């Protein structure tokens, strides 16, 4: 099984300032015992990261704020279920943020315009050489395996992950029937899984 979450630690350290903050795992454990101060510090250390993830998926600013609020309420209530074996704290929190975003998005009745974040090419994110470093081993493996996918398969996977595109929205974006998108996703995910687990 591949590890995960290591890359988060490096990207987070930049947002921490002032006195050395306790490790996020400690803050989460303290919050689980009802320590509001620890929960606030956890928020200060991670909210920008999670808001970035949420905003990219939801697009709408008001909706993103509501989703961030709901995400932190879930974190507060579920803090005691966090287990180190589930990965780095911020990776665990990102999973909650993404899931809450997607739930909110799919429950909306009105369709949204399928425009990706301005000037956003998902490939840039994973192809950015600056992100390669001693902490980027997981991402390096993922990038290598994404490279095995057909162009359309890779773009579908990345647009869905980063931008929250549904199959229908992907179909609209690529001008292809939903059935084709389903096939691309199926093949893309199968290739990715086999490559990462292999």
């Amino acid at each position, binding site marked *: *099984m591949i590890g995960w979450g290591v890359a988060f630690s490096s990207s987070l350290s930049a947002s921490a300032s002032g006195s050395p903050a306790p490790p996020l795992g400690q803050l989460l454990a303290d919050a689980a015992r009802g320590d509001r101060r620890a929960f606030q510090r956890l928020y200060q250390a991670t*909210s920008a990261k999670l808001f970035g993830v949420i905003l990219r998926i939801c697009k709408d600013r008001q909706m993103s704020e509501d989703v961030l*609020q709901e995400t932190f309420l879930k974190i507060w209530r579920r803090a005691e279920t966090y287990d180190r074996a589930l990965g780095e704290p911020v990776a665990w929190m990102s*999973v909650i943020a993404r899931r809450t975003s997607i739930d909110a998005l799919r429950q909306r009745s009105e369709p949204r315009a399928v425009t990706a974040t301005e000037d956003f090419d998902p490939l840039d994110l994973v192809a950015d050489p600056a992100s390669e470093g001693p902490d980027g081993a997981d991402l390096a493996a993922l990038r290598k395996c994404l490279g095995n996918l057909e162009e359309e398969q890779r773009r579908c996977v990345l647009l869905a992950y980063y931008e929250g595109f549904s199959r229908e929205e992907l179909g609209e974006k690529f001008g292809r029937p939903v059935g084709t998108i389903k096939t691309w996703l199926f093949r893309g995910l199968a290739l990715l899984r086999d490559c990462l687990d292999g």
Partner: protein
Amino acid sequence: MAEDKSIKAGEYVLGTLSAAERAVFERQLRRDPDLAVAVEVWERRLGPLAAEVEPVDPPADLWARIEAATASPIPPRAAVREKGESLLDRVAFWRWTSLAAGAAAAGLAVALAIAIIPRGGSPEGRFVAALQSGGEAPPVVVTVDLARDSLAVRSLAATAPAERSYEVWYIGEGESPRSLGVLDEVGAVITASLSGIAGFRAEGAVFAITDEPEGGSPTGGPTGPIVYSGPLVQQSL
């Protein structure tokens, strides 16, 4: 694991399933530990991607909103189930109580959940009969075994309408309803450990079943009418 199942878990994590498919998948997820593992593994496979997203500062007043929302007299607690809690809990609770009052006034709520608290003895040697007019089986039986730290909710005659789900709620005295899962057909059973229900207290506990969209309430709190409800009573020996 079947190929389809693994990929479906991947699509769930990716987020490409529709709202209806997500609800059905989450329902399967609660019943199928293999599927839950598949989801966790996909989160790990794709997780490094999220680390690449640029941070964006949220508005300064958002923390105050969150702090106010967490300032409830109820301390934080572990989720009983993924759907068992949401920021709407408090709101939903009040809506739920008014629904309950309305249903009772209209004589609609069939209060027939039977709950017993057996103490000691082997489960094989334990029986319960819930008597009802007309010789019908009681729709739902809830058993709570303090000694074994276990709770079971069994449908004997309750079947949710097509494309709807019956969601079971534990309501501690003075607390908001907490979801125990969905119970859609005759023979279905929900089991849980009491220690997994943070702060569980048998005294004053009430169980209720509401009619919800397929897969369970979308908000985490009850949204539909109460179909069955009943208090937890101690079995006298």
